[in-house]
């Protein structure tokens, strides 16, 4: 790591903090625009004016919106994420194990999808135009074209309901043993890989083909280097930048965008908590989830940029 990278990271963190502030303010005020508030939702059909008023006082909803936003910010500065309106327990307690679950699902999916996507992308690029390339292309495209709820529902019907190979509810398996872990994760991970891989594969293939057409590769080939060496040591470093960015975008979806998969497999992750919190108007939880998703997204982009710089001599030396 050199000074340039450190400077870039420092700048990114400052801009990132401003972005987070803007996003959380935006979400806070947008959620306030939704009809109904936490007190009304909690009491539902049975709300009476006095019970609603009492609950509003309890939640502090009788304070002006701007004041509430800043008191939330002040709490944040002291590491306090607030108390959930809907359940009356600290936000930390609600999201704690769900963050772990979401991160686990994202990590397992990443570990499976990234290597496969790289291999498929590189193979397609090397054998471009061949029958193999066409078959791989059609496969990736068709997998991404089928909506995930369909894939997920069909997978549950086949593997859980018909064949009883795995459990239909991913959290009911005991994940402490390897077989248990596989049973719990195999279906959701498979569905998510289908969703995120296509983008990575196409990007890898396009970027690599772009490089393989250039003069320095032709030179290397003419010198008699083996194809594998040309691709891996000459072309790949120049492909890392665009590919890392494509991957960051794809993987960011794994944290906030997996609501459908969480619902169908009854997987207790953060996305469903977030959706629940919005419908309950449970602002402290909504705010936390937004912050968490944004931080993860910015981190992924930052990592992608660091990769780009480290692999690009021009940027390293400037």
């Amino acid at each position, binding site marked *: 790591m050199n000074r340039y990278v450190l400077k870039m990271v420092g700048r990114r963190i400052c801009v990132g903090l401003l972005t987070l502030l803007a996003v959380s303010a935006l979400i806070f005020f947008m959620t306030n625009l*939704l*009809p*109904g508030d936490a007190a*009304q*939702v*909690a*009491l*539902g*059909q*049975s*709300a*009476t004016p*006095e*019970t609603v*008023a*009492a*609950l509003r006082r*309890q939640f502090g909803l009788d304070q002006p919106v701007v004041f509430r936003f800043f008191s939330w910010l002040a709490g944040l500065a002291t590491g306090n994420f607030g108390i*959930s309106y*809907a*359940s009356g*327990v600290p936000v930390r307690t*609600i999201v704690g194990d769900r963050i772990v679950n979401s991160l686990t699902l994202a990590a397992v999916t990443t570990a499976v999808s990234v290597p496969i996507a790289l291999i498929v992308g590189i193979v397609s690029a090397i054998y471009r135009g061949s029958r193999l390339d066409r078959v791989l292309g059609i496969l990736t495209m068709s997998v991404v074209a089928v909506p995930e709820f369909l894939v997920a*529902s069909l997978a*549950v*019907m086949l593997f*859980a*309901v018909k064949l*009883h190979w795995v*459990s*239909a*509810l991913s*959290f*009911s398996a005991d994940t402490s043993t390897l077989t248990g872990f596989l049973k719990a994760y195999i279906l959701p991970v498979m569905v998510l890989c289908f969703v995120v891989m296509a983008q990575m594969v196409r990007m890898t293939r396009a970027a690599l083909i772009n490089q393989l057409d250039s003069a320095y590769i032709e030179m290397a080939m003419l010198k008699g280097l083996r194809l594998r060496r040309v691709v891996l040591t000459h072309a790949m470093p120049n492909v890392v930048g665009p590919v890392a960015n494509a991957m960051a975008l794809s993987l960011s979806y794994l944290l906030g965008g997996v609501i459908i998969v969480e*619902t*169908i*497999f*009854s997987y*207790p992750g953060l996305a469903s*908590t977030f959706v*629940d*919190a919005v*419908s*309950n108007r*449970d602002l402290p*939880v909504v705010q936390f989830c937004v912050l968490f998703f944004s931080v993860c997204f910015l981190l992924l982009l930052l990592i992608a940029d660091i990769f780009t710089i480290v692999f690009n001599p021009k940027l390293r030396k400037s």
Partner: protein
Amino acid sequence: MTSNFTVKRRDILKMMGVGAVASTASGLLVLGDISSAQAAPMPKRGGKLRAASANSSVSDTLDPAKGSNSGDYIRQFMFYSGLTELSAKMRAEPALAESFDSPDGITWTFRLRKGVTFHDGKALTAQDVVFSLARHKLPETGSQAKVLADQFAQINAVDAHTVQIVLVAPNVDLPSILGTSPFLIVQDGTKDFSKGIGTGPFKCKSFTPARSTVGVRNPNFWKPGKPYLDEVELLGLTDASARLNGLLAGDLQLVASVQPSDAVRLKQSKKHAILETKSGMYTDLIVRVDQAPGNNADFVDAMRYLQPREQIVKTALHGYGTVANDHPVPPWHPYYAANLPQRPYDLERAKFHVKKGKLQGLGGDLVCSEPIDGSVEGAQLLQQAGNQVGLKLNVRRVPYDGYWSQHWMKHPMSYGSINPRPTLDMLFSQFYYSSARWNESGWKNAQFDQLLVASRGETDDAKRKKMYGDMQVLIAEHCGTIVPAFISFLDGYDRRVKGLESNPMGMLMGYRFAEFVWLEA
């Protein structure tokens, strides 16, 4: 000894043909039990059952005052008991109170069962009951039952095992009201409800909102021999297909709220079955009678004749429902007005009313929402029927999010969804009394109000039935809420689960299955 009218009411119920009722001529109340009089197989003890409820979010609670959906009710009945319990015959049976009586419907005496203990070993006393009932009146409790609790003028502990409740006005239905989940008994002074310390059939082993609740058998439960299961886990799965798949894949043995369209899949399975609970739940079309076009009585009459009742039951509910007669009392209710003829689907009579009220070309939006059972299909059928008689009705679907605060009763025409109530008095007081906050159609009828107030203190059951009959006629003929059908609760279960029966109070045996079911190995 119980007062005279209790005996009379029971005899009436017997005459109504609601099954053999365990009662003695002396009027001693016998401990009620849902299990039928048929030769049932001997229950087996042991085993772990996993069930799934349809409602679940981080607001899941073990506080009876805050319970707001079926998931909460089921959870709370696992851990707590009430003073009374509601049998499948819609009667209040003694529970923590071994007897109760009132000379006038205003002053009530409840005598507590002796030797009942909470899960932490503390003995149940009158003080616990006073605390459990009185907390609903405080606005800061945020109780769902505040409106009901406001009728308690005084709640006193006469001695360690006697509680006296004085009402602001007579209400002979009080024992039934106290059998509902908000009034389950908690320990005196409880502030933290997450432990679920009650006197119920199961002890709370773990409780994670939005996820799962685990209960283990309470060996000191006050009903000897019950419950049968060693452990019950209640999962919250809001997605209907996730519940069904869990059941079919063998992860779950019991699931609440099966979609009527999914019932076919369950029927094909040899290992599973459906529990249909005929209930008083209904989806109603609300025509506001205080604004156009509903302020024209002919318009409401035309809308009533346009209701394709049979078709709604057949298509929207897949047969799992019962045709209704524009009032909220189901045909199997002891107080059902059998003398009121069933209103038919009749385009000619609808046309007559359109002509008579000069309504050609009038109409408006029918505001409906997908999760309200049968509202969208009902509105679509109604739109077509309206076209044939010259009314311009238009289906307007709105998102369910915020429906109750934004749309319900807020338009000239919208749909409502009403869950069954334990007593007709609750139903009428909450939805039809002129000044009721949920008087959906804005209907004001002095005669109805008079009858309702009088019925609360009427101890003669025959007279009471007549009053309720008259009120049903008034609603069916004059009110703007149109009730086309009653909706059955559908639950799915693994055939190895035994002891399940339907209780019209709610799904899964009136939310109380955990106490009664056992597992065949």
